[in-house]
């Protein structure tokens, strides 16, 4: 028996070690990539991209605001898929991924709203405009996923909590197009002053496109990096709680 098992376990063990090493390389690559892209993105947004003729320098916030507006949808889509997979497979890891992506998604959404408000205040003198469907929709999205985090807070690490959060993760994302339609129509088919002015109807100048793409890439890398870190912290915390429970049991016995 033992001689039959041994070669098996060593290949499994080495496979596992190899996978762990590749994951580590991947993570380091992500970190390095983010570290390189960030200054380039900042430089491109602040210096390389042309100054907007209409809005002046404030318009440069767009290189923050647009990626920050799109990435939450990515994050919450990940929550949606992970929630479905958790309910289907009941693998703890999907639940952790959903939680991690939701948390990072809320952070990005908050930043999107903040940059939107700073832009509004800086250019229009008004930090908020309900007439802007994108701002309103994102705000509702923010509310939905903050409620998701609240639910997580009030359910702790229980299995029922994971299930219920998954239901909210699914319902929340399905609500996204619903919110979009309702809000867009709420502010009439032709919104008047939309201060997310897409630089005219013609194509962006190439320098601006470059700045936008680099910013988008930098933020995406950060999203992935952050989600991995939060995932890790959640997994470790669970392990710590389990260990503590065992230690308390051991203490109780003695």
């Amino acid at each position, binding site marked *: 028996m033992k001689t039959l098992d041994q070669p098996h376990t060593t290949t499994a063990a080495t496979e596992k070690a190899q996978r762990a090493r590749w994951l580590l390389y991947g993570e380091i690559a992500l970190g390095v990539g983010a570290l390189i892209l*960030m200054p380039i993105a*900042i430089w491109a*947004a*602040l210096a390389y991209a042309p100054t907007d003729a209409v809005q*002046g*320098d*404030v318009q*440069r*916030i767009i290189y*923050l*605001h647009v990626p*920050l507006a799109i990435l939450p949808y990515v994050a919450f889509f990940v929550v949606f898929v992970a929630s479905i997979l958790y309910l289907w497979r009941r693998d703890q890891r999907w639940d952790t991924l959903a939680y991690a992506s939701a948390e990072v998604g809320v*952070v990005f959404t908050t*930043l999107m709203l*903040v*940059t939107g408000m*700073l*832009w509004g*205040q*800086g*250019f229009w003198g008004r930090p908020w405009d309900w007439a802007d469907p994108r701002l309103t929709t994102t705000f509702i999205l923010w509310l939905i996923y903050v409620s998701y985090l609240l639910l997580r807070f009030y359910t702790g690490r229980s299995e029922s909590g994971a299930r219920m959060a998954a239901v909210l993760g699914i319902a929340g994302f399905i609500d996204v197009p619903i919110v979009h339609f309702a809000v867009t129509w709420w502010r009439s088919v032709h919104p008047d002053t939309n201060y997310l002015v897409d630089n005219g109807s013609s194509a962006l100048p190439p320098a601006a496109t470059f700045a936008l793409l680099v910013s988008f890439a930098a933020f995406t890398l*950060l999203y992935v*990096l*952050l989600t991995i*870190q*939060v995932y*890790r*912290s959640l997994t*470790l*915390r669970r*392990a*710590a709680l389990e*260990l*503590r429970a*065992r*230690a308390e049991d*051991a*203490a109780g016995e*003695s």
Partner: protein
Amino acid sequence: MGYLIAAFTVVWVGLIAYLGWIALRIRGVRLEIETTRALLDEREPGSEQA
């Protein structure tokens, strides 16, 4: 424009700070795991799984 600087500062400093905070959280939990492991080893030497 002040708002431009404010926006860039809030976003980038904020994200780095958030990353740092998570790293601290991880380090704290790792420490807790180490100490709990040591405690368990004291009480039940050898009965603990990896």
